[in-house]
């Protein structure tokens, strides 16, 4: 078999039917372009969520009380009080993989300043919390160890709180706000962080020494959470293991008994978050993939018509010595050339459309080489798959009947 000759023959046939070829290609072009654009949008939003989460503190580890619910068994409420100040202290002293650690307790309620009020919650934390959550004090200062030791009635507030309470444009630092009838001196204002990916206002916070919140507001001796930060992102897992070991010892848990606490890393959160966008991406890709199949059926349809229309030509080729295989190959090459050329144009168009979306709608995009290769491979396979049946039909024609076909 002479491939270059068959290639020339197929090329000639395509050139003889430019408009029809283009229209057939259009199906593939749209299919491939939409696959690439959809994947670019999906991947883009996934990456943007990931980067936002890492901005929240990529090394962050969260330690929560209670065991996970397993097999539908709800753990007793006493299990939710398993994190104590002593746990925090031990972890702070013994953990080698942590760069920062802060307890966390919170209470919801109304903040009042003058005639203004605003409902939010107060978080009792240590100074390390700023580092863990990557917060900065813009104005004033953070409370210190002395404030914690004295359970001082001081707080650092976020931008949203400041905006809602100090409507007259007063400098919040030094002012006294009331929370559940308790006066708190504002000693600092946090730098604005805006909204996070989940739509939460990251400036809607009031930070106070954890001792103050535990003793003066909640009157409890347990923590709702402990935040920590691993030294590097790569050491997160070691840190988690170390924390678990220390807490198990602290809680006197025997081997075989389940943990009565949960240690989660930001990584888990991030994978949980991105799983949503991943399924979204898959959905988009599926929709786009369907249009690729429709394009493939378009090829099949046209090839089928083409075989019928060119029956006489096929008969002639056979009578001058083309074998069935030659005819089959010729039509397959035609189908594959249509789909590959369409694929190439589709790739260009898809990349262009993705950048168009970025430019006009401002959505984040990420074009991955894999998605380009994949959609290209799929459309070549589509060409072979949908070209096969019509080509086989052509190859099986009886030359005697074909040559006299009118």
């Amino acid at each position, binding site marked *: 078999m*002479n491939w270059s*000759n068959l290639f020339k023959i197929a090329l000639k046939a395509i050139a003889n039917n430019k408009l029809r070829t283009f229209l057939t290609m259009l199906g593939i072009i749209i299919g491939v372009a939409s696959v690439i654009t959809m994947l670019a949008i999906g991947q883009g939003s996934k990456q943007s969520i990931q980067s936002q989460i890492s901005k929240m503190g990529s090394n962050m580890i969260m330690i929560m009380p209670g065991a996970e619910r397993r097999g539908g068994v709800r753990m007793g409420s006493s299990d939710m009080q398993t994190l104590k100040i002593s746990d925090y202290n031990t972890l702070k002293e013994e953990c080698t993989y942590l760069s920062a650690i802060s307890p966390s307790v919170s209470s919801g309620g109304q903040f009042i300043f003058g005639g203004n009020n605003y409902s939010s919650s107060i978080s009792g934390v240590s100074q390390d919390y700023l580092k863990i959550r990557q917060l900065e004090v813009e104005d004033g200062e953070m409370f210190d160890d002395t404030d914690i030791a004295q359970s001082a009635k001081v707080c650092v507030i976020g931008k949203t709180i400041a905006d809602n309470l100090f409507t007259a444009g007063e400098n919040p630092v030094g002012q006294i706000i009331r929370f559940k009838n308790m006066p708190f001196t504002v000693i600092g204002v946090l730098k604005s962080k805006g909204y996070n990916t989940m739509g939460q206002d990251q400036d809607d916070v009031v930070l106070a020494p954890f001792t103050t919140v535990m003793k003066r507001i909640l009157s409890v001796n347990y923590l709702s959470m402990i935040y920590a930060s691993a030294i590097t992102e790569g050491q997160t897992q070691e840190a988690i293991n170390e924390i678990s070991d220390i807490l198990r010892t602290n809680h006197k848990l025997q081997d075989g008994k389940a943990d009565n606490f949960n240690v989660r890393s930001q990584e888990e959160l991030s994978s949980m978050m991105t799983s949503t966008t991943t399924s979204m991406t898959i959905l988009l890709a599926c929709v786009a993939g369907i249009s690729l199949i429709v394009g493939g059926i378009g090829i099949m349809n046209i090839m089928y018509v083409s075989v019928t229309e060119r029956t006489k030509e096929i008969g*002639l*080729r056979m*009578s*001058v*010595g083309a*074998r*069935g295989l030659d005819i089959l190959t010729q039509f397959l090459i035609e189908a594959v050339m249509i789909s590959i050329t369409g694929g190439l144009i589709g790739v260009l168009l898809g990349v262009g459309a993705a950048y168009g979306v970025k430019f006009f709608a401002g959505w984040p995009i990420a074009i991955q080489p894999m998605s380009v290769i994949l959609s290209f491979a799929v459309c070549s396979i589509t060409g072979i798959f949908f070209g096969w049946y019509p080509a086989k039909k052509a190859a099986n024609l009886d030359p*005697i009947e074909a040559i006299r076909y009118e």
Partner: protein
Amino acid sequence: MSQEKKVVIDLQNIRRDFIVGEETVRALRGVSFKIYEGEFVTIMGKSGSGKSTLLNTLGCLDTPTSGEYYLDGVSVRKMSKNERAILRNRKIGFVFQSYNLLAKTTAIENVELPLMYNTKYNSKQRREAAIQALQMVGLGNRLEHKSNQMSGGQMQRVAIARALVNNPAVILADEATGNLDTRTSFEILVLFQKLWKDGKTIIFVTHNPDIAQYSQRNIFLADGKVKDDTVNNHILSAEEGLAALPKNEED
């Protein structure tokens, strides 16, 4: 004289049956003859005489139900489809009634077609052979004309060039003048006579008895059998016939 010549086609008691529903149609009922190299033979018969079936058999498009067929010394009967395709490619040149040229394709590309399926030719040799064949049929000045820019006579010349290009053992013409007017038919016959004088073996299948006068040997087919096989001792010259036609302004 033909006894010493090489046998190109040797049919031995060829039968071809078609089963149509319950009935068996016997298209060929024992056809035997030999055609020698350099002969110009017309095969005639009415429709239904088995002419087309015989042509398909001679052209290796079909295989006989029984009997032996040797083309250039090779037995065709037991060949596979692919083997027959290759045999057609190397040993047979077809000329059809309706020319069967590829649409929107130049004369030279049409003539090159059989060689596209022959790996022994590279593109340069293919082009040379095609130009040579087109010169033989008098179209040396129309190499790049497309099939839709040519007259019927020119198209048939291209088709004849296509049949010549692979230097076949035999040229099979199926009603090759059937679609042409009298004058152009004569021109094509002139061409066939010229090719015959150059030593080509030509089989011309037709229902038109007039053409028989221009060939060397006539085989009459009736009811799937050879009814008559005569040598024509008074071969008319197609050239003279053409000259005798009334002048045509448009030609």
